[in-house]
């Protein structure tokens, strides 16, 4: 089977996929946990509410990997280094994404990098070269990828807001105004600044005060108050499930208060730091778009730091980037096809 556009966004927490050759993408989300297949036994692999449960086994460099595993089921620490896109785990997740499309040939793969990595041209071209070409994703199963386009992750959320924005006035703002996209992920907060529809790279970037810092703060506070440690993976699970409670020494512990305190402490500082670091004039921002897994947790901080701006959270913010990648490339294909058919006529 041949696929036209496959968009894939490989994060530390989730891997998001948007594909399909219609006018609406098919979106799938799997947890980004990767491990040896025998280490998860026969359990069904896959995530929480609304997620696609898939038991995927792929092969990278002769080694088998199970992908789509919840982080709580994995003993190894999560990868946290700038070389993540060049690790076997990353490639395994890429293969997992390709596997979910069921395609054997793909015209174009679109993916993204954190802004700071995107600003390094050699990292972009190395990643594109790594993902392009023929890949044996499982024994005897080859997927051929003709072209790879790498962009900055928040560019996806920006495009997605143009096509998905609840209010049509946002389209006008995005074309004519100044828009800041904040994309809080697990290890980094990415931000990209757009002026009249163009990305201003010099005032865009990433910093490390992301959701992991919030969770670390919650974990430390619990240990301080109650005298025992809770891993950040368990805090993350509580945040994702919206229950905001965990089992602590066999008792239900509501951690909402810890979360609120940590969000206030970490997020406001994180946004203020990024504004100061890039000398960005906050008063002249027309719209702040929040995307990514931590979007909902940054709203309050964003309202505090940008009191005069419109603040909008992308719909289903976890998948906003990947939808945007897909819309961007699919629009190019549709426009090119329509131009070609007009020429034939």
């Amino acid at each position, binding site marked *: 089977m041949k696929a036209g556009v496959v968009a894939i966004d490989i994060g530390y927490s989730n891997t998001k996929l948007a594909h399909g050759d219609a006018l609406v993408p098919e979106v799938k989300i799997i947890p980004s946990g990767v491990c040896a297949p025998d280490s998860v036994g026969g359990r069904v692999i896959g995530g929480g509410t609304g997620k696609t449960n898939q038991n995927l086994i792929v092969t990278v460099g002769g080694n088998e990997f199970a992908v789509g595993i919840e982080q709580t089921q994995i003993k190894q620490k999560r990868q946290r280094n700038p070389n993540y896109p060049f690790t076997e785990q990353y490639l395994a997740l890429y293969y997992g994404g390709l596997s979910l499309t069921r395609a054997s040939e793909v015209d174009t793969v679109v993916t993204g990098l954190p802004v700071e990595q995107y600003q390094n041209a050699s990292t972009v071209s190395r990643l594109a070269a790594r993902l392009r070409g023929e890949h044996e994703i499982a024994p005897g199963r080859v997927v051929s990828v003709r072209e790879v386009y790498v962009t900055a992750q928040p560019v996806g959320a920006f495009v997605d807001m143009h096509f998905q924005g609840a209010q049509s006035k946002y389209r006008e703002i995005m*074309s004519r105004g100044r828009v800041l996209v904040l994309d809080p992920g697990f290890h980094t907060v990415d931000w990209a600044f757009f002026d009249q529809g163009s990305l201003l790279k010099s005032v865009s970037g990433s910093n490390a005060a992301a959701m992991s810092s919030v969770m670390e703060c919650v974990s430390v506070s619990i240990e301080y108050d109650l005298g025992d440690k809770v891993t950040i993976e368990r805090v993350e699970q509580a945040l994702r499930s919206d229950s905001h409670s965990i089992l602590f020494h066999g008792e239900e512990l509501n951690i909402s208060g810890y979360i609120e305190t940590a969000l206030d402490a970490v997020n406001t500082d994180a946004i203020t730091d990024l504004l100061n670091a890039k000398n960005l004039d906050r008063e002249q921002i027309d719209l702040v778009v929040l995307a990514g897994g931590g979007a909902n947790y940054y709203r309050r901080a964003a309202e505090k730091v940008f009191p005069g701006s419109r603040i909008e959270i992308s719909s289903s913010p976890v998948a906003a980037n990947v*939808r945007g990648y897909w819309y961007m490339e699919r629009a190019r294909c549709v426009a090119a096809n*329509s131009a070609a058919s007009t020429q034939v006529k």
Partner: protein
Amino acid sequence: MDATQSRILVRVKVDDTHTDLLAHLMRYQGRRRAKRIVFLAALGLLVERGALTTNMIPIVEQDAAAIDAAANSGKKELKPLTTQPDDIAFLATLRKSLP
């Protein structure tokens, strides 16, 4: 022992309108459960045509809509791609600013 008598009461045809739903069922519910769901749907048709009587409450339209929504999850809530001149101009401006 005599074989149980049977006759075809109704044929269930899965046409284009339902292939998405069937594919979804096969993929996420498994072949066995998918077959069972199709079987139950066929029974529903028989009831509808008066060939069977049952005390079951008929499927209301809301339930049918929920099944349909599940089959197309992620599709209906998204707005379709548009390629109006302002969309093309928006993307062209953005692309120019990307390396």
